[in-house]
């Protein structure tokens, strides 16, 4: 037991009848404070928490040393020592955002970077909401870099499941709180904000990756895309990593492939077994007069690579059949069907349904054309497949080909570019794809009409309980009905 002096700061002197010092006998700092509390009602609760620990806003010094740096309340005392109770003095200008942040912190659970990493490994979505220039300095591997500005518009495509845990992160842990709240409002049920943000993630030595950036000539080429936040650098890179398969390098495939190459779609597959005919040149703009008689695939490659050397053209000079369809389709993100015959349309449909690929379908007839997207696997809306609409092919006399009926040369340009537009939208995950809707264009009237397409829940290929029934002999399937 030592006799020590406790110095009382002015804000606490109303508990000590104005005394600025109290002498007590105690062996430790904790004992001294308890003694003080026993003799001066109410003072202890200002200094210690209900759990008996030093309050956050109080410092206790023994001599000139803070007891937090010594042994805490167990710090032993020597005869004659002086204990000072020092009210922590703090404050600051509260801005509206601080009040708001305090509210947010009370409702949004925060996790440490380490916890966020573990949650990501367990299936949570880690969403980086920082700006592009911050992300270019590094970002957690596998994080979804959706940006803050378009977060609400993009999150549903990236995270369709509202019960999947989502951890937002920014640079310091503030913007991520706002982002987390927005996600909760959208309906996400398990949203967390990463405290300390990316700077703490980095300081704790957690893994980072530097996302690839576009080089200067590439930025120049796609500058009009980069200006649009819906595309931006991330979107452009997505296009450059995308693989689109074009069925046919003819009237529809030509304009679609031409613009997709210009847009920077990284890999364009072209399936066509035909050679260029002079009669094709009225509309099939990939080909030239000098290439009449050469293969359409090689002619397409020449034109596309001349426009954009960065695009990889993968040619398939083959007839698309049941036995090669999956081998050709595998690895592509999307199929643009510009075929002109029913056996191929059914085959393309069946393979796309089986592989879950979006099938951007177009067709033309004289002055008219139509475009839609068959994509039963689309996460936001269950649309039909081609077979929901046409379980069987129409009789031949109802479906003449261009060779039989003729076509206005510019018409496939309109429809092929609508297909290309749908393809780019789907690759970027923006806008409303033409799923469950068919856009019909009447060139003579100069009018578009939109038709709703319903899926058939009993469809043998994409219906509710459908199991893929297998490929069929498409030539015979179509010939039988036509006969």
């Amino acid at each position, binding site marked *: 037991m030592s006799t020590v002096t406790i110095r009382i700061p002015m804000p606490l002197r109303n508990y000590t009848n104005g005394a600025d010092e109290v002498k007590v006998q105690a062996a430790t700092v904790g004992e001294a404070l308890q003694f003080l509390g026993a003799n001066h009602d109410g003072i202890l609760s200002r200094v210690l928490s209900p759990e008996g620990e030093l309050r956050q*806003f109080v410092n206790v010094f023994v001599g000139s040393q803070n007891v937090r740096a010594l042994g805490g309340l167990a710090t032993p005392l020597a005869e004659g020592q002086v204990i000072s109770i020092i009210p922590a*003095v703090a404050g600051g200008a509260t801005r509206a955002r601080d009040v708001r942040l305090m509210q947010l912190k009370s409702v949004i659970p925060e996790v440490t970077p380490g916890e966020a990493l573990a949650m990501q490994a367990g299936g949570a979505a880690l969403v980086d909401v920082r700006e592009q220039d911050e992300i270019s300095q590094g970002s957690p591997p596998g994080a979804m870099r959706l940006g803050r500005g378009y977060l609400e518009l993009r999150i549903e495509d990236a995270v369709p499941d509202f019960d999947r845990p989502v951890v937002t992160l920014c640079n310091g842990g503030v913007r991520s709180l706002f982002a987390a709240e927005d996600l909760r409002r959208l309906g996400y049920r398990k949203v967390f904000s990463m405290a300390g943000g990316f700077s703490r993630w980095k300081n704790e030595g957690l893994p980072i990756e530097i996302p690839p950036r576009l080089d200067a000539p590439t930025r120049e080429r796609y500058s009009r895309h980069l200006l649009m936040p819906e595309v931006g650098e991330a979107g452009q890179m997505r296009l450059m990593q995308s693989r689109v398969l074009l069925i046919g390098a003819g009237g529809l495939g030509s304009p679609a492939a031409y613009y997709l190459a210009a847009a920077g779609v990284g890999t364009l597959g072209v399936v066509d077994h035909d050679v260029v005919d002079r009669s094709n040149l009225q509309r099939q703009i990939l080909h030239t007069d000098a290439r009449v008689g050469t293969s359409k695939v090689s002619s397409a490659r020449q034109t596309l690579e001349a426009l954009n050397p960065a695009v990889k053209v993968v040619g398939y000079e083959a007839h698309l059949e049941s036995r090669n369809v999956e081998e050709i389709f595998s690895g592509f993100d999307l199929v643009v069907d510009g075929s002109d015959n029913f056996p191929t349309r059914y085959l393309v449909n069946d393979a796309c349904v089986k592989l879950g690929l979006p099938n951007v379908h177009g067709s033309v007839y004289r002055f008219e054309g139509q475009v839609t997207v068959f994509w039963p696997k689309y996460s936001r809306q269950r649309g039909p497949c081609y077979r929901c609409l046409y379980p069987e092919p129409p009789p031949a006399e109802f479906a003449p080909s261009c060779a039989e009926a003729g076509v206005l040369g510019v018409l496939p340009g309109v429809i092929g570019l609508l297909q290309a537009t749908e393809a780019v939208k789907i690759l970027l995950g923006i806008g409303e794809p033409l799923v469950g809707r068919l856009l019909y264009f009447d060139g003579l009237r100069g009018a578009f009409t939109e038709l709703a397409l319903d899926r058939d829940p009993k469809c043998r290929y994409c219906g509710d309980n459908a199991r893929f029934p297998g490929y069929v002999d498409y030539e015979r399937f179509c010939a039988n009905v036509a006969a």
Partner: protein
Amino acid sequence: MATLQLSGELKARIENLVRTGYPHETCGLLIGRQANGTVSVTEALAARNLNRERARDRFELDPQAFLDADRHARDTGQEVVGIWHSHPDHPARPSEIDRSLAWPGWSYVILSVSRDGIQDFRSWRLAGNRFEEEVIAP
């Protein structure tokens, strides 16, 4: 209403510290005596703001500075009678943060400062759980 007696010289000293510290929050202690509702300030000390991360809108006074000031005050028969701090680009009234962290029995001098200099200079005192303004007299 309590009165804070602060000489022009001390006022100028605090203003100078606040202007120099802008855009960061600066803080310090007031030493003097108080009796009968009047606080007479004899010294204004500067203290380190421990909150480096948010020095633009937070202050957290170094407890060592308080200990030193308190010792000095006691040695000269005085006491710590208040705190001064700045609100950069913000009015000179106590914020919600100030209120929640304030102690009774002290004067809280708050200066509003902008890039153009001192905008306002006021003093407050906790009464119950709200702040009341004090008169500042030379």
